[in-house]
């Protein structure tokens, strides 16, 4: 006969209500962690999908995601000729807004040189870009269908292929075109103020042939670090290995989200702990007399501690499982992509166990202090 279980049956309403409360809290905690993972995944996903070994960007910047990076279009040719390079490709990133079927969509435009690094990863549908103009490949969440005609700037593009889960760190779906198309679009779509600015810098830029980065794939015997150092010697250029690029993204783009979500998560976990602690404490105080009786008839402390801890742990575990189920059921209604990682679930489960144990401390202390003689008093 399990004393905790039997006692819970007696207080089933209170117990289940607490479990529901804890499950909602833990569900939100899990949701926030999943949102955070989604953010990381999206932010790094794009950089990872480009499959570069080294990113060459404008000198003194950490672009193109963290800072603006602008380089002349011929940079790639210089890089390609360096020793150890297997292939290199120019890329252009541009946040654009287009009107489509009566709605405005924000997209991340990526221009690359087909056949070189920087293009879309595996297509989930459709075909690669084969013509040098007016074809595009979009993330499925942009909402375009294969074959659909999309007006961007002054031209109409045909959607020829779709990719999955490729969004910018802001959440905007990605759309790929050829570098030339993207460069023209950039010029056409840029706000006039920015265009005037560019015109003033025209002496330096001369034309619209500018790019944001050169993606480099190295021969297997070339170390990205060594190569990056080589490139750094050109004052106008900076270079980052893929790992550095991901670190930069993680710190610049994700750090704030991590702090905010981490703060809320900690607060919710503390609230859960306080709730579990309070309920366990009141349940213990309600059981003062039975506990005194148990001590009187000779039950060791371990029996009494177990009685309390098992209930606290049961609350935590039921809350955790119910929370996870609720979150999975509500997953589709979230505005952001949720990414569930087993390691997060395992860690959170561990934290929940610790919280339950910590929350029961006052209850357990109160129980151990109960005087067996108090069972005798009327």
């Amino acid at each position, binding site marked *: *006969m399990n*004393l905790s279980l*039997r*006692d819970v*049956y*007696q207080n089933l309403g209170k117990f289940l209500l607490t479990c529901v409360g804890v499950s909602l809290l833990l569900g939100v905690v899990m949701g926030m962690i999943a949102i955070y993972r989604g953010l990381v995944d999206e932010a790094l996903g794009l950089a990872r999908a480009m499959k570069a070994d080294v990113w060459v960007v404008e000198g003194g910047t950490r672009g193109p995601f963290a800072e603006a990076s602008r380089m002349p279009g011929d940079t790639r040719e210089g890089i390609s000729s360096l020793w150890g390079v297997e292939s290199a490709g120019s890329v252009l990133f541009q946040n654009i807004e287009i009107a489509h079927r009566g709605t405005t969509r924000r997209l991340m435009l990526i221009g690359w040189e087909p056949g070189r690094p920087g293009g879309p990863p595996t297509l989930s549908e459709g075909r690669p870009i084969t013509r040098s103009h007016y074809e595009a490949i979009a993330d499925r969440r942009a909402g375009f269908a294969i074959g659909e005609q999309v007006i961007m700037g002054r031209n109409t593009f045909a959607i020829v292929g779709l990719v999955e889960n490729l969004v910018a760190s802001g959440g905007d779906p990605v759309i790929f075109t050829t570098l030339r198309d993207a460069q023209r679009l950039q010029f056409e779509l840029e706000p006039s103020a920015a265009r005037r600015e560019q015109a003033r810098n025209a002496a330096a830029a001369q034309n619209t042939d500018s790019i944001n980065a050169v993606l480099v794939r190295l021969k297997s015997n070339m170390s990205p670090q060594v190569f990056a150092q080589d490139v750094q010697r050109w004052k106008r250029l900076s270079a980052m290995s893929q790992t550095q690029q991901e670190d930069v993204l993680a710190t610049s783009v994700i750090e704030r989200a991590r702090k905010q979500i981490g703060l809320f998560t900690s607060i919710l976990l503390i609230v859960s702990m306080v709730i579990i602690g309070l309920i366990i404490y009141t349940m213990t105080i309600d059981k003062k*007399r*039975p506990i005194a*009786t*148990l*001590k*009187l*008839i*000779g*039950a*060791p*402390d371990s*029996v009494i501690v177990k009685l309390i801890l098992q209930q606290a742990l049961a609350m935590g575990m039921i809350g955790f499982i119910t929370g996870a189920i609720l979150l999975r059921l509500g997953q589709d209604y979230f505005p952001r992509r949720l990414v569930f990682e087993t390691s997060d679930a395992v860690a959170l489960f561990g934290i929940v166990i610790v919280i339950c144990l910590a929350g029961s401390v006052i209850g357990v202390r109160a129980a151990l202090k109960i*005087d*067996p*003689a108090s*069972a*005798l008093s*009327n």
Partner: protein
Amino acid sequence: MQTQDALVEIRGLGKHFGEGSTRVNALADFDLDVHAGEVVGLLGPSGSGKSTLLNLVGCILEPTAGVMRLDGQDIWNGEWKRKDLRRLRLEKIGFIFQSHNLLPFLNAWENIAIVRTLLGDPPAAAQRRAHELLDYLKMAHRRDAMPAQLSGGEAQRVAIARALANDSRIILADEPTAALDSERALAVIELLRTAALERQAAVLVVTHDDKIFDRLDKKVHLRDGRLDPNA
């Protein structure tokens, strides 16, 4: 010699609460022997130290003076830890209280079986023993009832069954009949007498209840923590 088979042996036992001006001598220089098969009543006005004496014998209170031997073992000689005393209570002492103090979340037979479980019996054996005791106390039909569903007399019988469950030879009862009508009060004291005889147990009963006075083998009168010389 009589003291040879005394299950409870008390010499010069004393207990005070507080110090200085707030000091209360609840029990002072008290001697008592309770033998196997005996039902001894503790009588006296409220505040005379009856419960204190019972709690001392039950190893719930630590005396401030004197010696006590239970079933031949010296208690409070400095070698006993709280843990050992719980074990001692579990193995040797059965408690019955006025408010029957059954565990509210266990049913009648489970309230008895838990003692056997704590003693290490496997569940089936503990349940069998609980059923036997309930049969013995003519409570078999209420086995599965929760304490809240039992009448005062029924609950007291379950409590007695629990006190007998560890085959204890020292049974302590604090006003076990106070909440019962005279018929049930007599039935309870009869049960205790039977237990004392059949199990050769020493039974110590605190009572105000004159209905049961003539069923006691021995009456000990207390006044201000001492034997009442006028009784």
